[in-house]
């Protein structure tokens, strides 16, 4: 009997989210793991490559395997590399990826974006829909690559309908092993907060996000979706509940917190270009995704925060 299992390429395989996605797909699909950081060791039957997707060698992966779907999770975080390198990897790399997908007849692409693309501004209404303008690049040059990746994906969404692109914009994804800015921040014992500001936030456990990615892949309903629970908490409550002590940072004049962040080299957890996200809310409406895919998060906010609380009790 011929093998009917689909072959799925997962980028960013060394990350906490991708590892969970791979674990869920393993067995039911042929999984191929790709990461630019290191060759990931997972199951023996999962081919794994250390490769940068904007480099030429990436095409060999497509030549070697007949790939049916791509879960594009991998992204270089701002604190990992400089702006040019990040732009090359995130924007040019994704463009390369889309082109390869067209060339090799990939039938489905899931793009893991972020709620940061909406931009944090005092004028944001709450519960932003998917068609709200993406204003992040108005706020800072450092988020240009996130917005451009989105724009690029949206161009391919209509230019190459055969790719069945699904763009997911999750809120803060948190939990064990997650290395994004917010997670690195909550790991710390002492956390900066802007005096007089405590915007609303939404958080998602990394396991729920992995479920969401798998649901989006298996049900294949192309489009753009916010991924967020119907539960909300202020930033300062989140900091307290994660067992962090608060370090008050003066918020007036508006340039001051950015200067403090640069001067103290807080790039990995409270970077100057994200300061506005700690000041103004970016609350997204996750109804469309929840209804379309029949998905609801199974872990509560307290489940998420308790991980950070417990993490602080461990001896280091």
């Amino acid at each position, binding site marked *: 009997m011929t093998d009917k299992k689909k072959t799925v390429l997962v980028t960013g395989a060394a990350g906490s989210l991708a590892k969970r996605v791979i674990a869920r797909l393993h067995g039911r699909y042929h999984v191929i793991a790709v990461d630019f950081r290191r060759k990931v060791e997972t199951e023996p039957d999962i081919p794994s490559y250390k490769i940068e997707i904007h480099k030429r060698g990436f095409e060999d992966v497509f030549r070697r395997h007949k790939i049916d779907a791509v879960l594009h999770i991998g992204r270089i975080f701002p604190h990992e590399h400089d702006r040019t390198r990040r732009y090359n990897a995130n924007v040019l790399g994704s463009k390369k990826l889309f082109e390869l997908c067209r060339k090799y007849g990939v039938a489905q692409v899931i793009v893991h974006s972020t709620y940061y693309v909406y931009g944090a501004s005092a004028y944001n209404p709450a519960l932003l829909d998917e068609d709200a303008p993406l204003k992040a690049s108005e706020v800072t040059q450092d988020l240009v690559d996130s917005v451009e990746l989105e724009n690029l994906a949206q161009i391919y969404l209509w230019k190459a309908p055969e790719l069945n692109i699904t763009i997911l914009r999750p809120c803060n994804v948190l939990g064990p092993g997650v290395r994004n800015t917010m997670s690195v921040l909550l790991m710390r014992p002492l956390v900066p907060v802007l005096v*007089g500001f405590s915007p609303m936030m939404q958080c998602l456990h990394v396991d729920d996000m992995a479920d969401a990615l798998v649901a989006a892949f298996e049900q294949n309903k192309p489009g753009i979706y916010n991924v967020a629970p119907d539960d909300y*908490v202020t930033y300062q409550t989140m900091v307290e509940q994660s067992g962090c002590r608060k370090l008050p940072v003066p918020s007036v004049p508006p340039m001051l917190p950015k200067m403090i962040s640069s001067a103290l080299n807080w790039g990995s957890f409270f970077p100057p270009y994200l300061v506005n996200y700690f000041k103004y809310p970016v609350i997204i409406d996750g109804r469309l995704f929840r209804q379309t895919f029949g998905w609801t998060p199974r872990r509560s906010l307290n489940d998420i925060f308790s991980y950070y609380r417990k993490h602080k009790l461990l001896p280091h």
Partner: protein
Amino acid sequence: MQAFEKVKALSRLASRESLYRQIVTPDVEDQISRMPKPVGSYGYDAWGYNENAAKLGLGVVKLLYEKYFRVVAHGIENIPTQGRALFIANHSGQLPMDGVLIGGAMALNPHGPRAPRAMVDRFFPTVPWLGSVMTGIGAVIGDPLNCVKMLEQDEAIIVFPEGVRGSGKLYRKRYQLQRFGNGFMHLAMQTGAPIVPVGVVGCEETMPSFANIAPLAKLLGLPYVPFGPLLPLPARVYLNFGEPICFDNTATSEEAVTERVELIKDKIRELMARGLAERKSVF
């Protein structure tokens, strides 16, 4: 004078806990718990309303409502106890005390309390603390998307269609309705939310403004700076809630919408006249 005694009594209290208990009485807690208002696992909703902040806010508003402005409210049985609603009122008094007191009447309504939501100016979130406090007790920036989504989730929203035209007007123009925006009518028609007209009497006298210091307002980036008392005076306030009015989606032109807005304005004028007739003394 009752209010002054109360403040004196409050200042003597040693611990914050007992001060809190003085403000957030069991009555207040009971009213909050009876509100049909869904919140998340930490007591917040998407717009930042927070139960604990609302308790404290209602406690303070209750003192203002009962002791300082000695509000007389008629027609509170017209406040829907469930479901979406728009409360449309005349705006006056420089500071939005009218909004606070209408909110007070809604939250303290013995027939069934509602968590009042108010649309506020877009500059509030940029002010440290003030933004967080206002958000916590139920204010949101006046964006149509906010309003639509809140009505869809069956919130009760206070809107002053006059905006700063009403609140910033001078004392000599008191009790004259300024131009109404049509936005609220479109929202009501779109979401099927009933409109409850409210006539407010007394707030004009809380902060009579004799001139607008325009250059200073421009310098501070504020819509207006009144020349008059610095804090609200303890004028008696009369609120008259009219019967809820529903509008269908049949108005096809902006003219037809304006006609409906005029209808609401007439209702509010009528309710204001009722309050003015009832009032025996300003203070």
